[in-house]
């Protein structure tokens, strides 16, 4: 599991991914850790196959008792099928996830972790000194779906929006937007069901000051590439399977 610090200020953001040991037929995912003075938030902790390498990687940055919060953008197995194991590892943690998905996510095992339901209009996750905004991104692609925005670090964690499925050795940032588009097109057209939902999300996200747009798969977008992505996505017709 590779680790990259993508923000260092009063708190830090660490990106985990590009796991060379992951089983071949499983999609590569990015996990993110937000570390404040004494608390950590694990964003989209990943699939069950990734649990041990992910936990091992996290132990380089924080002790388990400081991992107090988990966030799941939606219910997919690549996001959170490791929940049952985190549930045994973390003595007192909360899972922030859509209320709509609670009955489904609990299938993964959630006995000691407290399930904090996110309402449809989002909310905040507070890590003491750091506050992250939960931004609704419904139907992109899951019916209840959220992004996380950190106004201080100017990072938007965008879940499957902006995702590209790439090889494990890919760089972590987009360096040639025009070339990157082809890796995203079909994924967004096929996985994202609603043009209306897409427009609502773009409108909402355009109001945020974003330096890094961090998806759950593939490369992150930085600086001007964030705007390029929003423009490209706005013009894209999605929901093509019907």
């Amino acid at each position: 599991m590779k680790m990259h610090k993508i923000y260092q200020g009063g708190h830090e953001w660490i990106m985990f991914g590009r796991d060379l040991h992951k089983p071949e037929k499983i999609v590569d995912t990015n996990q993110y850790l937000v570390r404040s003075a004494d608390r950590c938030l694990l964003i989209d902790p990943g699939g069950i196959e990734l649990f041990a390498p992910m936990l091992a990687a996290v132990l380089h940055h924080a002790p388990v008792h400081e991992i107090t919060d988990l966030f799941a953008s939606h219910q997919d197995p690549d996001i959170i099928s490791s929940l049952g194991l985190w549930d045994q590892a973390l003595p007192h943690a909360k899972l922030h996830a859509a209320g709509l998905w609670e009955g489904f996510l609990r299938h993964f095992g959630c006995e000691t972790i407290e399930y904090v339901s996110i309402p449809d209009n989002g909310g905040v996750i507070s890590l003491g000194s750091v506050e992250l905004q939960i931004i609704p991104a419904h139907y992109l692609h899951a019916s209840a779906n959220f992004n996380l925005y950190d106004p201080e670090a100017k990072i938007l964690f965008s879940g499957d929006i902006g995702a590209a499925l790439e090889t494990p050795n890919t760089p972590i940032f987009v360096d040639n937007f025009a070339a990157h588009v082809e890796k995203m097109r079909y994924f967004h057209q096929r996985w994202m069901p609603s043009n209306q939902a897409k427009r609502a999300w773009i409108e909402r996200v355009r109001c945020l000051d974003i330096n890094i747009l961090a998806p759950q798969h593939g490369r992150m977008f930085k600086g001007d590439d964030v705007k390029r992505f929003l423009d490209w996505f706005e013009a894209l017709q999605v929901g093509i399977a019907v």
Partner: protein
Amino acid sequence: MMHQGHSKSQFVAVASIAAELSAVMNVAKDISLAAANAKAIAFRAGEKAKGFQPITDFINELAKDTIQLVVIINQKALQLYQLTIREHRLAEACEQFENAVALCDAATYADSLTQSLVLVRQRRSECQRQFPHLVAELLALLSDVMHPARAARVIAANSRIEASQAGEYMQSLQAVAESVDNAAQIIHDKVQQCRSALSQIHTDAYFPSTKTFS
């Protein structure tokens, strides 16, 4: 990603118990029906089937007892299944925590996992402690459910004798006796299968998993 070979066979064993039990339940309901049917025939036969009438009540009682016991056994089997899932999850957690420790290659906070690992091991041995007790309870209940089945076979034999004196109703009453006998035999066999599936978990499937604690 099964942590150990035994888990799979344990799940299969517990699931097959549930399957046998639902078959027992169906057969017991069949007996109930047969009893109601026999009662109607005996009523129509009047004097000729006088000896048969109390037998039908007996058969009905036995079917009821069986159904009641199977309901309780089902609850216990469900508990056993849940315990199996829990043990499986804990075993998986133990293994994954150990993997993480091996992978993290002296990370700064590697030691912070120790407490969780100890806790998971404790929870797991608690499951393992409960397991044989629950199996023993189930085995006892399963041997209880054999009693009505055995009694039903004795009654079926009596029914045949009574049926032979029922004139033109002889054939239909004999058919009732026959079906009760068959049903009792099936229940007996199914319960026997449950017991052997259960003893298998108990003896060779469960205990190898304790090796991590030796």
